[in-house]
């Protein structure tokens, strides 16, 4: 019967949550989101004066995580000129921490079976219009071959529904399969070098299994931090209805040794100011308990999905203007973190908000199950979780980024040489990681231009590379510059995956 779990599914659901893996991180039985306290702070910090804002800006520029009252003050700015200043500062912070590069990636959806029934999600189990399937390992391989061998991606975010057929064992198999793919390209070879995952909350044991196959970042969004809204949108009795099991999944990942974790909220479910505060509290609690904050923060807005009327009915839709403020305030509040803008957003919005703090974006994006190797071009509602706003190719997006003055980076070096956990935190906070970002952007962009670029994109990219190499020559020690040139020439000769 529609929406009713099978015995196997029910048994699996009952086995997932382990209370002892929640309560150990809580204080006095309470989680770190106090809804009333957040609202009180938002109300207490209205009409912040300019001197206070200047002090907060200075703290952000020193790459320090803000206090809740400070973020609340930023969220209450009303003066347009002050907002303009905040956008400029956000841009400056991003440059300081990550230099001029934008990392690109692609999502790969492996399955849309799900035991949950979230009101806003196209994949909810009672949604009859969605075609359900799980990719086999051969299909996963084909998807990865297209992504690595034809488009040129090096980094994926792999996405799975929460279901016994896509449990940790299956996820581990898919990751091994993706890492094994190696495809000959025009001048070298293509390979996925970093597999990040967007998956459900898991136990420490399951997370260790994923750690052992070498996952990149473990990404889970809380969706909404507001307890009441969370309860309303995730029906009681479903696995996802357990707020704290989800809230502490990054803590468990860090305990399991996965020391790159990513948080996010789905904007449009509740008040956007509250959600930004929730993200800040989340980052601060990870820092407090592990000394490691979120590797990235995501801030997707709700997009239309097949047969999902909730999305049209929400009272919390975020305007384009507020979306820009969300990005800037997150950038100032958690200045070291990576920030992901996805192809949910239309090209015009991506162009506008990218300069104010974005570090990563996707392109050539397809979110249908098996969509890359099927090579379908139109969006198909019945096989997608939601509808995309930007379906441009990676080549087009890279060309535009180059014309805007940005270098596209395919760098995946950090997690392969121990720039992870609290070490990467130190490098980010001191601005030293920006140097690695710049050097590895140059090398990986060279690879991509030689293997995959259209003539127009290559021409635009060469201009950017020239400028970046000049900057490296001017700003970095001579021996670093010389090593870069050596690697650069070796890449031009067909070697791949050289990095700093």
């Amino acid at each position, binding site marked *: 019967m529609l929406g009713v779990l099978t015995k196997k599914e029910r048994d699996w659901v009952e086995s997932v949550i382990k209370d002892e893996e929640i309560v150990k991180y809580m204080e006095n039985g309470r989680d770190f989101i106090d809804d009333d306290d957040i609202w009180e702070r938002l109300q207490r910090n209205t009409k912040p004066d300019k001197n206070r804002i200047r002090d907060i800006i200075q703290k952000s520029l020193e790459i320090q995580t803000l206090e809740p009252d400070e973020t609340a003050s930023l969220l209450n700015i009303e003066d347009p000129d002050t907002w303009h200043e905040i956008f400029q500062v956000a841009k400056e912070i991003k440059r300081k921490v990550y230099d001029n590069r934008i990392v690109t990636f692609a999502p790969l959806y492996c399955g849309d079976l799900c035991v949950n029934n979230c009101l806003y999600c196209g994949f909810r189990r009672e949604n009859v219009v969605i075609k359900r399937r799980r990719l086999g390992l051969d299909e996963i391989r084909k998807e990865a071959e297209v992504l690595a061998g034809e488009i040129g991606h090096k980094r994926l975010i792999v996405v799975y529904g929460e279901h016994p057929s896509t449990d940790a064992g299956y996820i581990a198999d898919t990751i091994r399969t993706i890492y094994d793919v190696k495809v000959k390209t025009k001048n070298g070879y293509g390979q996925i070098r970093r597999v990040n995952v967007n998956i459900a909350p898991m136990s420490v044991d399951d997370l260790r299994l994923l*750690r052992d196959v070498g996952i990149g970042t473990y990404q889970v969004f809380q969706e909404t931090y507001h307890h009441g809204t969370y309860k309303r949108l995730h029906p009681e009795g479903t696995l996802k209805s357990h707020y704290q099991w989800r809230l502490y999944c990054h803590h468990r990942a860090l305990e399991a040794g996965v020391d790159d974790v990513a948080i996010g909220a789905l904007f449009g479910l509740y008040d956007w100011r509250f959600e930004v505060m929730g993200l800040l509290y989340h980052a601060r609690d990870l820092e407090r308990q592990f000394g490691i904050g979120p590797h990235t923060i995501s801030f997707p807005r709700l997009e239309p999905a097949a047969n999902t009327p909730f999305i049209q009915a929400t009272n919390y839709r975020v305007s384009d203007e507020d979306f820009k403020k969300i990005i800037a305030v997150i950038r100032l509040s958690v200045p070291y973190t990576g920030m992901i803008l996805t192809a949910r957003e239309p090209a015009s919005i991506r162009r506008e908000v990218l300069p104010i703090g974005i570090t990563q974006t996707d392109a050539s994006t397809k979110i249908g199950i098996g969509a890359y190797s099927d090579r379908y071009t139109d969006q198909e509602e019945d096989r997608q979780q939601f509808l995309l706003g930007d379906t441009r190719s990676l080549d087009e997006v890279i060309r535009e980024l180059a014309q805007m003055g940005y270098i596209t980076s395919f760098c995946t070096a950090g997690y392969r040489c121990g720039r992870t956990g609290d070490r990467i935190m130190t490098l980010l906070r001191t601005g030293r990681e920006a140097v690695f970002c710049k050097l590895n952007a140059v090398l990986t962009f060279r690879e991509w231009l030689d293997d995959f670029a259209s003539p127009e994109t290559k021409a635009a990219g060469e201009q950017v590379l020239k400028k970046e190499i000049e900057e490296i020559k001017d700003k970095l020690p001579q021996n670093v510059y010389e090593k870069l040139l050596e690697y650069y020439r070796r890449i031009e000769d067909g070697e791949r995956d050289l990095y700093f």
Partner: protein
Amino acid sequence: MARETSTSELFERFNVVAKEIKDEYNAHLWLIEVFGKRHSYVAGCKEDSFLPPEVIYINKRFAVVSSDWDRIPLEKKEEVFSLVRDFCN
């Protein structure tokens, strides 16, 4: 034989050696735990020079990384490798 040191002791001892090497030879050294492609930092220097990192695998679980191997004398390198090797035996 039962392991006599815990991983936390290994990390503490590695931190001490890494600091000595940093102070004496201006070379940055860090210890990583290997999980497939993921090489997670566990101990040692948190900063480094901007040269390419060279990973030396001690065993299936641990590797030592530096961008400055050429600054470290052979016997000091061997001391570091032994520290990690002995822990794993």
